[in-house]
């Protein structure tokens, strides 16, 4: 447990992710934690945010009831559109999505994410589930938020396989491969928030969570983590944010 007693680290991460969503934005929501982040944003500072789920769901208000997957019935009833994956991912490719959430097993200092293979893809030591929609969201959202567990072997200098494109070897490489927009805007981990900085858009330490320090975060990062000039402690969840979160997380799943 890193956090203070009134909230868990996961709750802090959810609230931090929610704060990345501006009012009125179109959000490509991923599974699990981002679903809660979208809900908290909707109920607090972003009442006009719209949530898109790659299985073919658009929602205005957050679902009533616990979601184990984005396609669970509570996410369907009262949706603002039930449609197909191609429609929503097509709109994503068409530039209609402001922000997208992804996760993965590994991320590197330029925000490239691996969710496919550890080791050689022809003979992997670990076969991960694969892209799902992450590669699409990473390539085509206006900006990307990555959610990760912060461990040395997960935040690595260079991922062994780029499933979801970050800035490749630096921002110029992302543009050179033909991607016209986007890239990681923040990486939210259970220890810190990292943000791209400088012409290469290398990930820097933006804030450490309460209970962590710049040093403890660095010690758990697989590359030599630089910090932003104004790096600070992550502001804890406010009362309104926690109240919104508890309203959605009625079973207390994220408080455990």
């Amino acid at each position, binding site marked *: 447990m890193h956090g203070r007693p009134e909230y868990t680290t996961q709750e802090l991460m959810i609230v931090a992710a929610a704060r990345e969503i501006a009012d009125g934005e179109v959000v490509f929501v991923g599974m699990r934690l981002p679903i809660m982040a979208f809900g908290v944003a909707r109920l607090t500072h972003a009442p006009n945010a719209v949530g898109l789920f*790659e299985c073919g769901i658009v929602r205005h208000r957050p679902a009533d009831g616990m979601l184990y997957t984005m*396609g669970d019935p509570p996410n369907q009833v009262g949706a603002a559109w039930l449609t197909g994956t191609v429609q929503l991912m097509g709109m994503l490719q068409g530039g209609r999505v402001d922000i997208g959430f992804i996760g993965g097993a590994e991320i590197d200092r330029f925000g490239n994410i691996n969710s496919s293979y550890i080791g050689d893809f*022809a003979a992997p030591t670990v076969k991960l589930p694969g892209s*799902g929609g992450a590669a699409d969201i990473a*390539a085509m959202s206006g900006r990307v938020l990555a959610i990760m567990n912060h461990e040395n072997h997960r935040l690595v200098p260079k991922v062994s396989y780029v499933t979801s*494109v970050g800035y*490749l070897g630096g921002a110029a490489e992302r543009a050179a491969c033909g991607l016209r927009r986007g890239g990681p805007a923040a990486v939210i981990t259970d220890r810190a928030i990292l943000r791209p900085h400088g012409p290469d858009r290398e990930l820097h330490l933006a804030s450490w969570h309460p209970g962590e320090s710049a040093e403890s975060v660095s010690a758990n990062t697989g590359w030599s983590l630089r910090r932003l000039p104004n790096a600070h402690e992550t502001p804890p969840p406010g009362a309104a944010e926690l109240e919104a979160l508890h309203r959605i997380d009625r079973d207390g799943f994220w408080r455990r």
Partner: protein
Amino acid sequence: MRDKLVDLKDAIAELVRDGDSVVLGACLEPMIPFAATHELIRQGKRDLAMIAPISDASTDMLIGGGCVAKVIGAWVGNVSGGLGHNYRRAAEKRVPRSIAIEDYSNFALGMALTAGAYGMPFAPLRSLLGSDILKSNPRFKVTQNPLVDQPDPVVLVPPLKPDVAVLAVQRADRLGNSHFWGNTGLAQEAALAAERVIVIADEIVETPVILSDPNRILFPAFRVAAVAHVSAGVHPSPMVGAWRRDNDFFADYHARSRDREGFLAWLAEWVLDLPDHAAYRAKLGAGLERLRISGAAPAAAVNYAAD
């Protein structure tokens, strides 16, 4: 129109051949026809190429069951659990056999099925630029957009035309007309691209029920080869208006499939030792009834009158 209502056993026996490429559910997490997954394993189908955006644990079960030679997909695992243990064993240790993997993203798979459905020579994509998916899947090709002068790389995705698509619906008639509601994922593209479509209907109704609302149809009867009536055929995945997701069942599968012996025991208990889906439902017993959705959230009335 021909009466297409058959037993699921017969539909799988007659319409799925060893070596076929198969879509088993295409809505990502919900509406996965696990009843067909089980039947494919029971009948010992071999060398299948599973085309899967995200079919939750279904693909993992088939891999563990030794049915799969190739995965053409975006994601294979266990949505609430994470990694797919059988997928890992096959990819990492060739247990129970080696499998080939053709990597896609969900959108690339959707566009490949779209191209297959609509007779397109390829689908152009921007999405995978820069991703190593272009390296591990050599079927994609990057070219310059011929319509513009400045550099503009485009990924060309070849069409996918599954031999078989098995798709779950809330209700169908005996002729292959069906109603589907909820998120549609890639189900329409899969149905239109596939050579043979098997519909798994939670309920069989009279034709006028379906034709009373033709916008609720996701794919036309003339593309449907067979209709099988299997109540809760999507268990443990959910079906809006009918069945909740059985989260505990997925968790139990995840835990027990962690090693090969545990998986084989699970497979014997839930698939091989049961003759059919009726026996599976009976074994689930009251647990299944607890998953039945009993509430009412009716769609607003719609009038199709012409006069």
